[in-house]
């Protein structure tokens, strides 16, 4: 084997840097899923009756449907009765950060998100989700002055019932797909965000999710509503501790943009990918969708997916309002035995709607990376345009890249562009870098970052830096 392949492998094989388990007493529901489990979750959350009913409807529907098999990912059957659907840190009434369990705060520090420091230095409001219950919410007052609501989903379900009731399931109905339906039945927490008319959110909103309790699937639910003329940028970043059992994760994110509103949703996903032999790792089945409901509305998804054993995720846009714009920028990296089947759907309903898709897939080790895209131009979408660019980069000779672009055009005025490329990091490129003093690892990072730069420049500044670091960590051991 050539040296550069060895170096790539060495890079890929570094241990998961953020693998640790926080020892905090957890309030865990016994494993199993039935109507009682759902009633338990709902009562733990003090939810209104209508929400419990909605969950139960979803559960009953879920019982009638089958897990999908069309995807290009393979995993052993998931035992849905072997999962515990609720885990919360032992309840305490918190007046300030001082009362937060110091162990928990240390966890955040290890993750590089000391709350106090973030408060002071970055101006980023953090709604931190520790397993299923939000433990700390900052900057709320400042946002409240502008009429912005940014809180945990549980809180919203109690305090902002009318909004939640109006929009929950309006983008991703509880019947949508197997995993979204499961989420609708058992979701435990997540974030809710509401930006009133004409308000530009003055800071990036962010949530850090973390899966912690052993064998507890996490089912977040996020709902963002942007009223006419409002703007919001939302960041979501995740890491998870190392463990052996596979953990199921099935989140749902719904975005609604009214006239002239703009939502930017950025994700860095770095859950435990499993070890170098493919043992363990998170199963990540996520349904993310945005509705550009209003004229000139704009929804932009940016994702950097480096973690999870399985990533199954298609952040999509329904472009309903005339002149609305949907964007999807993605970097997905699979290393070792990771599998990713990810992409987007752009559904053009309104006139002069535009969409842009830029997908960068990186495969190393035995990783399998699939881009799956659906662009639909419906009958009345006169003047619709789509541009799709789909690039794959292979590192080593045991990985794979796959592309499934679906294009369906029902209006003859549509303009579609599709570009695709596949390339491989060559030994000659690595040697060229080496000869200029650059190590193999740095050479791979340089090339990978260059490959991804069109996506990184869509990320908020601090996220872009983090994303670059993450890619290099995720590729550790991949160069051999």
């Amino acid at each position: 084997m050539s040296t550069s392949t060895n170096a790539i492998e060495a890079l890929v094989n570094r241990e998961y840097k953020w693998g640790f388990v926080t020892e905090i007493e957890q309030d865990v529901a016994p494993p199993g899923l039935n109507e009682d489990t759902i009633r338990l979750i709902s009562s733990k959350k003090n939810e209104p009756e209508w929400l419990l009913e909605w969950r139960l409807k979803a559960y009953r529907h879920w019982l009638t449907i089958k897990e999908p098999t069309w995807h290009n990912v393979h995993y052993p059957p998931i035992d849905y009765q072997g999962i515990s659907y609720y885990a919360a840190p032992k309840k305490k009434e918190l007046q300030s950060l001082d009362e937060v369990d110091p162990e928990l705060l240390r966890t955040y520090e290890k993750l590089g998100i000391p709350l106090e420091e973030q408060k002071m230095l970055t101006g980023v409001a953090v709604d931190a989700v520790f397993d299923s219950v939000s433990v700390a919410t900052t900057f709320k007052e400042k946002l409240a002055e502008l009429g912005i609501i940014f809180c945990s989903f549980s809180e919203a379900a109690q305090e902002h019932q009318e909004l939640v009731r109006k929009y929950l399931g309006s983008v991703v109905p509880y019947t949508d797909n197997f995993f979204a339906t499961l989420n609708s039945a058992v979701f435990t927490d997540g974030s809710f965000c509401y930006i009133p008319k004409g308000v530009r959110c003055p800071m990036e909103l962010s949530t850090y999710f973390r899966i912690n309790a052993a064998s507890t699937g996490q089912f977040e639910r996020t709902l963002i509503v942007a009223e006419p003329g409002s703007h919001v940028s939302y960041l979501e970043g995740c890491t998870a501790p190392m463990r052996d059992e596979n953990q199921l994760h099935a989140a749902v994110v719904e975005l609604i943009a009214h006239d002239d509103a703009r939502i930017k949703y950025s994700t860095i996903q770095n859950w435990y990918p499993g070890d170098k032999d493919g043992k363990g790792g998170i199963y990540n089945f996520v349904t993310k969708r945005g509705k550009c409901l209003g004229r000139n509305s704009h929804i932009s998804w940016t994702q950097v997916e480096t973690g999870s054993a399985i990533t199954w995720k298609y952040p999509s846009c329904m472009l309903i309002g005339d002149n609305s714009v949907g964007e999807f920028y993605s970097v997905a990296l699979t290393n070792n035995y990771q599998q990713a089947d990810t992409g987007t759907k752009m559904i053009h309903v309104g006139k002069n709607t535009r969409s842009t898709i830029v997908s960068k897939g990186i495969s190393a080790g035995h990783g399998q990376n699939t881009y799956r895209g659906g662009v639909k131009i419906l009958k009345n979408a006169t003047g619709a345009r789509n541009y799709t660019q789909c690039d794959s980069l292979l590192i080593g000779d045991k990985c794979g890249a796959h592309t499934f672009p679906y294009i369906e055009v029902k209006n003859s005025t549509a303009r579609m562009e599709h570009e695709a490329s596949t390339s491989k990091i060559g030994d000659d490129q690595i040697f060229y870098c080496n000869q200029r003093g650059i190590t193999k690892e740095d050479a791979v990072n340089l090339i990978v970052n260059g490959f991804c730069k069109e996506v990184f420049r869509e990320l908020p500044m601090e996220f872009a830096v983090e994303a670059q670091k993450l890619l290099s960590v995720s590729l550790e051991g991949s160069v051999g």
Partner: protein
Amino acid sequence: MGPNGSGKSTLAQVLAGRETYEVTRGEVLYEGKNLLEMAPEERACEGVFMAFQYPVEIPGVSSAQFLKAALNAIRRARGLEELDAMEFLALVKQKFKVLGVDEKLLHRSVNEGFSGGEKKRNEIFQMALLEPRLCILDETDSGLDIDALKIVASGVNGLRSPGRAILVITHYQRLLNYIIPDYVHVLVDGRIVRSGGKELALELEEKGYALIEGGAGAAAPGRR
């Protein structure tokens, strides 16, 4: 100098540390150290630079990023402070001026879409920037028109100094009109069969390699 297949490029690649070549025995001493025990990037940091016969394209990586990574790696190895973006730009611009390179180069991907002449000129530019102590130019003149050849030669001449060795590999005497060599060595079948001053190159031009090769066997008794 030497005929096709005599091992000139192999020598260059082995010195630079290309891993597709296996060195079965011997050592290469460079400033008292055995080069063969070092990884290619360590050799580069020790001051070994090879201008590639076929410079490699690295799509997506801007020349600016690439050069900065290289320069700082070498500076680190030499115990110098790394340059930040501003200092780096200032240095690059100064070198650009000397070599007459267009600043737009910085924003282009490494060697991507470069003409043959641009690629070779870029190699010389990198050499000027990284300030190596042993420069190996592997057929840098091949494929160049006369104007590009002059530019490359003047770049090389500008780098000549007592503290820097330059090994120029070429087929043609033409380059040596512009880069006047101190010594000419003729490599045949992996061995130096003749050494001399610049007039040796002229002799080769006139008589061709065949003549020298004919006498080589006798001149080198150790040969297989």
